[in-house]
């Protein structure tokens, strides 16, 4: 089964990393030559089965660490995306980790049309890197950015994590300053979460680390919302900041309920109001593709009301909120008819607000830090 439609966004997953970070529960394996080549073969099969009619407006290669592969291996998935599948001006992002980038790799990516890099920096504090279990150091992050600029990348995003055990407001302030000083166009700033099954969660359960309190996390969250916009990076989503015109198109598409294909291990697709997901198991992925040409193990079509709710809670994460006209165009439904009963009290108590003459609904300033509680009322 290959979902066919007018979707114009593509996600491709490369599930390999140099080592495992302490907070990580993503689908990723420590890189092994044999696995990688079998995986790339399977990925090629999956790509060949993909049926699409529109040219791609955005491509996102995520992981894992796509850049930890060798030049040859990178080339193998790059060729899939060369040439005529892309629309003109297609946003083409690759996730990269410091310590895995070389000039050769960067040039290869550039020539293949990659025009956006998302660099997993997380923090500029060595102590923080160690707690998070990152294998690179601050120097390598700086080098990676400098190199990327040299290779001609003019759209760079940095991933930052705040709220790790022991981090002070001062530490976080320094991280933000540094990120701004490096002049990147886009920043994703996430509060650390202790995902169940991650080493960090186990350390917390064992009492070996003391997480920040809710109040401390809140303070860091508030700092973030003040600092970046003041430096010209506007908050366009709860955790995402960008210079004007550099918002991540690929992610905007997720949040507005757009369609997309996901290829690779554990990748998700959204096509025609239906969601699909591939298996998270490498063996199964390879076998299924060889036998059936598809690795899809999950498929869900929500009943209309649930679908509208899901869309609403995702879309509201955008600072601009939901434009009713756009919502109507996408779903054919009236937001207020479907969810007015829940929305009205939230507006009355100041968690949601209207603008543009009641055409646009958004989370208020005070709702951002507690967005999950507010959105849980709507889901």
């Amino acid at each position: 089964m290959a979902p066919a439609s007018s979707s114009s966004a593509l996600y491709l997953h490369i599930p390999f990393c140099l080592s495992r970070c302490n907070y990580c529960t993503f689908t990723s394996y420590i890189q092994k030559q044999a696995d990688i080549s079998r995986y790339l073969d399977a990925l090629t099969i999956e790509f060949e089965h993909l049926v699409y009619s529109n040219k791609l407006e955005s491509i996102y290669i995520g992981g894992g660490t796509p850049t930890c592969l060798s030049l040859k291996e990178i080339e193998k998935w790059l060729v899939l995306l060369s040439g005529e599948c892309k629309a003109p001006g297609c946003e083409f992002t690759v996730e990269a980790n410091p310590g895995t980038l070389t000039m050769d790799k960067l040039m290869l990516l550039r020539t293949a049309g990659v025009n956006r890099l998302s660099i997993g920096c997380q923090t500029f504090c060595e102590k923080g890197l160690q707690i998070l279990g990152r294998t690179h150091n601050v120097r390598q992050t700086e080098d990676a950015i400098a190199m990327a600029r040299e290779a001609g990348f003019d759209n760079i995003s940095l991933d930052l994590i705040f709220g790790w055990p022991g981090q002070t407001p001062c530490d976080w302030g320094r991280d933000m300053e540094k990120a701004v000083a490096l002049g990147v166009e886009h920043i994703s700033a996430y509060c650390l979460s202790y995902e169940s099954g991650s080493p960090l969660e186990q350390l917390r359960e064992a009492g070996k680390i003391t997480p920040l309190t809710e109040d401390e996390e809140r303070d860091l969250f508030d700092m973030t919302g003040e600092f970046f916009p003041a430096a010209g990076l506007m908050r366009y989503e709860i955790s995402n900041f960008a210079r004007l015109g550099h918002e991540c198109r690929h992610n905007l598409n997720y949040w507005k309920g757009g369609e997309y294909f996901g290829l690779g291990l554990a990748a998700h697709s959204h096509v025609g109001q239906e969601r699909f997901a591939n298996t998270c198991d490498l063996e199964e992925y390879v076998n299924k593709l060889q036998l059936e040409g598809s690795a899809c193990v999950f498929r869900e079509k929500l009943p209309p009301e649930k679908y509208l709710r899901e869309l609403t809670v995702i879309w509201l994460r955008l600072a601009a909120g939901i434009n009713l006209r756009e919502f109507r165009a996408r779903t054919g439904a009236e937001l207020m008819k479907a969810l007015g009963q829940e929305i009205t009290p939230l507006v009355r108590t100041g968690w949601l607000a209207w603008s543009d003459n009641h055409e646009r609904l958004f989370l208020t300033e005070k709702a951002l830090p507690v967005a999950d509680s507010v959105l849980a009322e709507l889901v």
Partner: protein
Amino acid sequence: MVKQENIRNFSIIAHIDHGKSTLADRLLLATGLVSERDFRDQFLDDMELERERGITIKARSVAMPYKHTDKNEYLLNLIDTPGHVDFSYEVSRSLAACEGSLLVVDATQGIEAQTVANSYLALNHDLAIIPVVNKIDLPSAQPEGVKEEIVDFLGCHPDEIIFVSAKTGQGVPELIEAIIKRIPAPSGKKEGPLRALIFDSVYDDYRGVISHIRVVDGEVGKGDMVRMLQVGREYDVTELGTFSPKMKQCNRLTTGQVGYVVGNIKELSNANIGDTLTAAKAQVEPLPGYVEPQSMVYCGLYPSATENFENLRKALDRLALNDCSFTYEPESSQALGFGFRCGFLGMLHMDIIRERLERESDIDLVTTAPNVTYEILKTSGELIKVHSPADVPDRGVIEEFREPIVKLQVMVPREFIGTIMTLAEDRRGIYKTLEYIGSFRVLLSYEIPFAEIVFDFYDKLKSSTRGYGTMDYELLCYRDSDLAKIDILVAGVPVDALSLICVRDKADKRGRAILQKLRKEIPRHMFQVALQAAVGAKVVARENIAPFRKNVTAKCYGGDITRKRKLLEKQKEGKKRMRMVGNVTVPQKAFLAVLDSRDD
């Protein structure tokens, strides 16, 4: 048919874990009633829960035919008794049907509080007591020391004590010999009109009520028309028999025998335990029954899902058929909806009933903090029993607010005397007596409000005496105390299910402790939640739950929107399972905060 003079009715009394059940099983083997092949551990505890917890709750009995070397056929009826302090009334019930008792004492432990309490019960019933020292096979056994304790305590002759190992069977033949020689045969009038004591009753879906009886005078046979004296109900005996140990039909039960009768009675109210069974037309005096069991502890049980109310009622009806010591009546609470106020003998009883309800009927329950029964003498002269704080009338109309007082007996090695004194005095205990049992251990007696010991005293006692302390209690009286009702308000709304009664002096302290506990149980909201404890119109403690400060998750990796939605849905689901007090969601666990806050 066994002759009346060859019948022996006896019970085994012991402190918990001293080996009562093991000895009972051993007797079944030794008399040949149960073969080695069929032997299953602890025959008499046949309820699943009882076996799991290793305690006997309901009285059971078994008839063991025994052929003696003197060529006589004997019938040894063992009436098993419950083994936990909460159930001491059941012990008394079983003793009423016996002429003798085996007092079992663990050779490694010696006499304990329950040994003492049960011995007094047996002496009150004028029973012949055979002291038995058990577990002599254990290397740590100190039979000599325990012997001294027993001689000291019972004032018996050392030679009267039988030494056994219930585990290996050593000494058991001597014990059987002693049962036959020392326990008197039943003395009832064989010719007289039928009088039988109903000492227990169980309910069976097919046969209806099955009454366990001890025939005191006369006899009863299949097809006889009988009458329950107190209820005044008559019925035909459709089936009767003995326990061996399963029910085994026979045609008659004669004077002194123990067995069961069935009469197609489907309503429980007619199965009155303690009542006297007699022939339909006979004019007889009722047997001295025993006091009806009194519910000592009450709590509210509510179905988690309100639509389960009727199912809960059915489940309670069913349980009550087999347990007359537990009571229930419908009540309603603003916070919890419709449920039942249930009465129990003690905390263990409450736990067991609750567990059984959840297990057997698959109903999720919300329990409110338990309380004891109070008596209130109104200024009008009316005396009312109060089973729930919600029923406490206005202070203005209360003349006396009385609480139950128990006689508490604690047995400890003497080095813990000071510990126990502090513990009991902290809990308003009034010291009565101190008695040495042997030269190392003491029996301390207190008069103490039941409310002070019912919930956690046992655990406290164990932890502060390195596990050596044992206890027993019995209800003495109701006594006027300076009690007050504390109301708990959440965001300004009084929550009926959280009210409690406590001594006025301690109202501030208890109030504060409960609020602190609630503060931990009630999740943060998007707004500040005020908690208050009040006595009448006076607020005695307050706390605030600060609003959420941060609750927002990171990005969706690889477009996994489903996961994000599920997280939010889970959050919403969690909220649904809570109760609403005004616009505050309160988790069900919070309703037990009153109980858990006792030591904070």
